[in-house]
Each structure stands twice: as structure tokens, then as C-alpha cells.
């Protein structure tokens, strides 16, 4: 079979018929701390070699107590090698699966290795490691999943979006809140924390298509688990380009609405009905 693109299977030099550049950095540093904590930071990264060093440096400085897994989602640049040089666990997907697949890799790793909690953290420096404590505090308060929101009171509105996108997000938000009988101010945030129950749920099934966060929120609520939001500071992106092209966005927006309605119409009653209360 002819080589379509050698970058496609980068990191998999044994893949038949594919010539890849030798993986320059597969050695972990001496003080490697792949596994030490019971809490894991999951960083999905697709071609984030420019932003990743800054993000990992800050994360390891602010929260040295947390384990980190970087899931390189079929990156064609040096994302995986750079992540490895920081001594963190690196899972390299052989091809691009999209954010959902990258995240599920992290969830599955977390469950398999007995982590009790996990945080989803952006590779591009949007999220502040100091805010991880805010998310964990909400988990301590009894939530199964915490969404770090952009627009909540206390959260800084440093993050600006256009009017169309804002309107579209509002429609989603209203739909979501109606379906789950809750009150989320932002359902599309990628800064989230999960407890073991949610990790186990997501390790089994996680929405694999674009705009996964809204869909997974609905999934958690439908499973009878408790999702809350916590206002957090979301910064401007440090590097990289936002993964949003208009045509694709519209398609996934419509797809999401159909999926949500389908999921909602087949929702199960809460897993454990409280005895004695019929309300």
C-alpha cells in the first residue's frame, strides 16, 4: 500500500508500509512522575506543540500534586514528544478521533488506573490551573460533575464570542436547561471536573462528535448523576487556532439538537428513586 501521508501514523513506526520520522523523544525524564496522585488532569491536544509547553509548565508549577495525561489526538507535529519531555503520561492516538475520542482515552485511562477524580484541561492555555481547586471544591460539595463556566457571576468575561455564536449557544442552553430541569449558564465549557461515577460512565460511552460537552452534560443528567457549574476565569487562547469553521459548526449544531432530542425522548427515570417521595 502506498504511503498516503507519513504524518498520519506518526508515532507508529511499525505500521506496515508507513515510513515515519523516528520518534526523537520517547525517553521519560529521570524524575518522571507518571503515577503518583489519585487525581488526574486530562489534556486533549491536537497539534498544540506551541501552546503545550507553557500550559504544562504552569500546571506543574501551580498543581504539582496532580497526575497528568496528555492525549495527542493524531497530532502531526511534536505534541507527543514535547509532552513526554515533561515526564507526564502520553497517550498517542494513531489518527485524529476528535475531542470526544481523545477525552474518552483519558477517561478510560483514569478508570483503569484507579483515579478518583479527573479534570479536563485545555492544552492551549485557556484554563487557569488555580481554578482546578474551584472545581474540586464543587466535587467535595457532592457534585458528580462540575462545569467551569465562562459567564457565571464571579467568572471573568475575558472570553469574547460573536453575537451569532452567542445566540446559538443561548438556544442550546435553554434547550438543555429545559430538558434537565436545571439552570446552566454555559453548557459548552471545556473546563470540567468529574468524580469516579461520571468517569466510569464516560469510559463506557462518551459523545464522540464535535460539541461533546453539551451532549455529555445531558448524558450525566439522564444517568441520574448530579452536574453543577462553577464560575471560573477563562482566558484568551495562547496559541493555535480555534477548531471552529462556520460550515462545520452549523452542521454539528443541528446534529447536536437532533441528538439531544433523541436522547431526551429515550431518557431513563432516575437510577435510584427516593423512597416515599412521589414528587
Amino acid at each position, binding site marked *: 500500500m502506498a504511503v498516503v501521508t507519513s504524518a498520519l501514523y506518526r*508515532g507508529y513506526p511499525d505500521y506496515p508500509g508507513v515510513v515515519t520520522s523516528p520518534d526523537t523523544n*520517547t*525517553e*521519560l525524564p529521570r524524575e*518522571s512522575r*507518571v*503515577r503518583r496522585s489519585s487525581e488526574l488532569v486530562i489534556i486533549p491536544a491536537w497539534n498544540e506543540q506551541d501552546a503545550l509547553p507553557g500550559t504544562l509548565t504552569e500546571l506543574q508549577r501551580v498543581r504539582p500534586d496532580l497526575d497528568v*495525561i496528555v*492525549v*495527542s489526538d493524531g497530532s502531526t507535529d511534536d505534541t507527543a514528544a514535547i509532552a*513526554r519531555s515533561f515526564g507526564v*503520561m*502520553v*497517550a*498517542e*492516538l*494513531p*489518527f485524529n*478521533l476528535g475531542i470526544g*475520542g481523545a477525552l*474518552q*482515552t483519558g477517561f*478510560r*485511562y483514569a*478508570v*483503569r*488506573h*484507579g483515579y478518583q477524580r479527573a479534570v479536563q484541561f485545555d492544552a492551549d492555555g485557556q484554563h487557569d490551573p488555580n481554578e482546578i481547586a474551584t472545581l474540586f471544591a464543587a466535587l467535595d460539595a457532592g457534585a458528580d460533575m462540575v462545569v467551569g463556566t465562562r459567564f457565571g457571576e464571579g467568572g471573568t468575561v475575558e472570553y469574547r464570542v460573536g453575537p451569532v455564536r452567542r445566540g446559538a449557544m443561548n438556544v442550546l442552553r435553554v434547550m438543555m436547561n429545559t430538558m434537565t430541569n436545571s439552570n446552566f449558564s454555559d453548557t459548552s465549557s471545556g473546563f470540567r471536573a468529574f468524580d469516579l461515577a461520571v468517569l466510569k460512565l464516560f469510559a463506557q460511552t462518551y459523545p*464522540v462528535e464535535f460539541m461533546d460537552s453539551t451532549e455529555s452534560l445531558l448524558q450525566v443528567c439522564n444517568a441520574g448523576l448530579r452536574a453543577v457549574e462553577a464560575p471560573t476565569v477563562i482566558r484568551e487562547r495562547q496559541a493555535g487556532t480555534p477548531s471552529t469553521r462556520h460550515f462545520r459548526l452549523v452542521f454539528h449544531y443541528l446534529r447536536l439538537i437532533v441528538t439531544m432530542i433523541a436522547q431526551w425522548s429515550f431518557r431513563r427515570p432516575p437510577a435510584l428513586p427516593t423512597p416515599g417521595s412521589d414528587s
Partner: protein
Amino acid sequence: MNIATTKLVGDPPSFGLSTPAHIMVLIVCAIAAGFLLRLLRRRQLRGKYTLLWIVTGVVVLAIATFPGAIDRVARSLSIYSPPNALFLLAIAFLLLICVYFSYELTRLEERTRFLAEELAILRGEMLATETKPNPAEWPVTHD
């Protein structure tokens, strides 16, 4: 391909094929069957799909041989023109096949994704353990 032998006035026309058209259909069906068997023999087509298309071919062949059947189907469905009944059934069948293939695709994508994820985790774990002097120092709890 099919030639109505009567004029489209008054009663629903009978639907039949001329002899050359019959022969053409037979030849096309034979070629298609040969092609499918070739694909099957080379393992480029799963048995169940070959069967699906062979059965489809047999049905097409049966309709070509006994065009009267379509007439009867059309009359029972109150469709004025028999070819329209044929098109209706054919399109419905093809749509069903498309939905079935979408289902199969989804299942395949799901499996591929699962494999890719597992591969990424295993490879990462392998690289992480390789550089450790003693793997026992790396506490891994497997469920």
C-alpha cells in the same frame, strides 16, 4: 430499458419487455453475479453482502422474466403505471439498504475508535514502564 407495449390511454397498460431487452437484462445479471462471486472469492466482499446482492439480482431477474408480477403488484397498490410501482419498491429497498449501511458504518467507526484509544493507552503505558528501573515501583491498579 422497458418498453410499454400498449398506449397509455384507458385501462392500465400491461407492462412487458421486448426480447432484446430480456436478453440484455439476463446478460447484465449474469455479469453482475460473476463480479460478485469474484469479489467473494478474493475476500473483498463479506459473504453476507454477496448474498444480499445475489438475492437482489435474482429478484430483478424474476421481475424481468415475469413482468406480469409487477402489473399485479401495481394494481393491488392502485398505482396507475406499473413502472412507477417498480420504482417505488426499488427506491424503498435501496433506502433501507442505505440505512443498514449507515448502521454498519457507525458500528465500525465505534470499534475503530475503541481500538485506537486502547492502542494509545497501551503504548503510553509501555513507554512509561520501559524507562522505569523497577516496574513494581509504578503502582498500577487494574480493575
